[in-house]
């Protein structure tokens, strides 16, 4: 009988923050892997004391002056051996840490067809649900009506889904690797090929459509910019105009929303600033929402900026506008809340409304959609494989009206977004994973 080593896992976020995923969550995941039919294969470590040393939970975590690299190795230095034929080891992994459930990064509602589209950043899929689906306590995960997934879809590292309200076309923005926006027919399902592909600048994050002017907006993290394309643009078509430059005060731009009635463009910024042409020019600024004319172009200054400690902005993600009121809805990832600003807000202003608290079910919300027709606001939660919906005017610790849940009840996701790197903390026996 092999004793599984006792481990904790640390998940590090992009940038500076580091989150600790406690051993209990990982153990729940482990137990789930062990106990039911699954896509995941987790193999026991070979029964060899040479391979695995069981680790006591009570093992001290300390750093002393005598603790050094070589004592960690515990062996004397040995010169590398002579070369020989390659020895191949076809052994399976001792352990696999991964999340089998979707992790939703974006949400869009199609009011005409009464459907909700969720962008899944873990299985690289787009899942379509009835708008009125509701996973009540004690019920199994919500069944999707259809799923767009597979190699032909080219959906990967996806950060935004948008539904054309007229023809129902489904747009998916990719944030890494492929640098494309792919478009599907509304009823696409399975391993569908996109009907259009538009090559965009690396690190595209969000999009919004101005139906009146037949153009759509794409925000790009870095170099921070907003590109405006002709509706229907595809291939290598260039943007009609580009908002970019120092005067814009864009910085590591993420979420974006437009108010076609008031002719405004909103962009949220994380505050990482640098001139790419000047090494050493980098600096950190506070997060912000910059507000522009809808037709802003070139190196154009914002009309106003929402910024400061009262705003509560903390890694803001997607944004959405209620064109009836002008209210701006923000998914405030690290703030663990949804915050709402009035259209004319400026400076260091507190949100007009905040949805936050244990009853909300929010967990690292990054996607948001203001469904003005049904007077609801949707959020996607990276932390628990759910999308939650609230009354449009909700404020405070409000329970969701309905929940779309794609994992078992109470499950905390691994919050894996892109597990490109890792590091091992031998002191605490923890794995650190940035996303």
């Amino acid at each position, binding site marked *: 009988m092999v004793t599984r*080593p006792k481990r904790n*896992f640390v998940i*590090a976020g992009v940038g*500076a923050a*580091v989150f600790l995923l406690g051993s209990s969550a990982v153990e729940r995941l482990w137990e789930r892997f062990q106990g039911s039919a699954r*896509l*995941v294969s987790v193999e026991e470590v070979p029964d060899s004391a*040479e391979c*695995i*040393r069981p680790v006591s939970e009570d093992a001290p975590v300390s*750093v002393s002056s005598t*603790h050094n690299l070589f004592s960690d*190795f*515990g062996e004397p*230095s*040995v*010169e*590398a*051996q002579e*070369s*020989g*034929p*390659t020895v*191949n*080891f*076809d*052994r*399976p992994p*001792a*352990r*696999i*840490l*991964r*999340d089998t459930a979707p992790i939703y990064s974006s949400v869009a509602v199609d009011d005409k067809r009464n459907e909700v589209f969720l962008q899944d*950043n*873990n*299985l*690289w*899929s787009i899942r379509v649900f009835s708008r009125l689906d509701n996973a009540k306590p004690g019920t199994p995960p919500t069944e999707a009506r259809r799923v767009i*997934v597979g190699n032909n879809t080219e959906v*990967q590292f996806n950060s935004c889904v948008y539904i054309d309200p007229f023809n129902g076309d489904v747009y998916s923005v990719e944030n890494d690797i492929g640098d494309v926006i792919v478009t599907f027919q509304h009823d696409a399902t399975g391993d569908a090929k996109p009907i259009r592909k538009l090559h965009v600048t690396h690190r595209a994050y969000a999009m919004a459509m101005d139906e009146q002017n037949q153009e759509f907006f794409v925000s790009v993290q*870095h170099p921070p910019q907003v590109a405006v394309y002709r509706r229907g643009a595809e291939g290598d078509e260039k943007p009609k105009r580009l908002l970019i430059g120092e005067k814009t005060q864009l910085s590591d731009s993420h979420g974006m929303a437009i108010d076609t009635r008031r002719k405004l463009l909103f962009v949220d910024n994380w505050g990482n*600033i640098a001139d790419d042409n000047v*090494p*050493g*020019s*980098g*600096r*950190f600024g506070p997060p912000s929402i910059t507000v522009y004319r809808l037709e802003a172009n070139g190196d154009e200054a914002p009309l106003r900026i929402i910024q400061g400690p009262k705003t509560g902005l*903390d890694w803001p993600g997607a944004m959405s506008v209620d064109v009836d009121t002008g209210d701006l809805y923000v998914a405030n990832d690290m703030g663990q809340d949804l915050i709402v600003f009035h259209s004319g807000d400026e400076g260091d202003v507190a949100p007009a409304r905040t949805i936050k608290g244990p009853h909300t079910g929010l967990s690292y919300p990054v996607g948001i959609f203001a469904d003005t027709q049904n007077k609801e606001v949707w959020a996607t939660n990276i932390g628990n494989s759910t999308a939650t919906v609230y009354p449009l005017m909700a404020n405070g610790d409000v329970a969701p009206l309905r929940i779309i849940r794609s994992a078992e009840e109470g499950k905390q996701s*691994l919050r*894996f977004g892109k*597990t*490109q*790197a*890792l590091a*091992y903390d*031998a*002191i*605490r026996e923890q794995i650190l994973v940035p996303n």
Partner: protein
Amino acid sequence: MHGFAFDNMHNEIVVTSPLAQAVLTFNGDAHGEEPPIRVIQGPHTQIDGPPNLGNDRVSIDPANDEIYVPAVPSSVLVFDRMANGDVAPKRVLHGPNTGFDEPGIRGMATVAIDPVHNVLVVNHRNSLLIFDRTASGNAKPLRVITGPKSGVASISSFQVYAPKGWIVSAMQGGSIGVWSVNDNGDVPPRWKIPVNQLTGYTASGIDLDPAHKEMLLSCAGQRSRPRDGIANAVLTFSWPEIF
């Protein structure tokens, strides 16, 4: 974030912030929105970022108190571990003799240090360039492992197991191979695990756990959908033979 490091000797986490052209050091037990204890940032640092993917990786040599940052054009910046603020690198490895192709190392290269055999290994464009650890300026690599027999491939981060001088790095086809720091030329690895063949994943990051004789891999889809469709994974392989 494509690369970062944990310093087991000093209990610190070192991460890059490419978009702000900074290297941040945190306490090893940092949690939540905890500020860094040191920040290397400013005009003297020579640290760049996108679009050339500078400052995309970072490596630590705890034994010699140094931080390594690949930068553009075609250079490796070496900082004192305790550097804080607008500090110039203590060494810069750069020049045509280094073997770093122009337009350069582009930050996509990655570095590992062997303080026992006193070498610096750079994984650059399907080659492992092995330098004297203190190489500076336009230095030539001591040895280069590259070629079809070697199968060396690029990767976001790799490791050297210093007590035995083993380089643990990526191979073409998604395998992980092990070479000696004394290897030179088109040398096949001593050992390999065909990770992609076994799991469908291609590793992008590697770390080692000598105490448990394990290799840990991060995998993030890497331009292809893993066969079971789950893009993100951390794999742990038992590999006592290399420790």
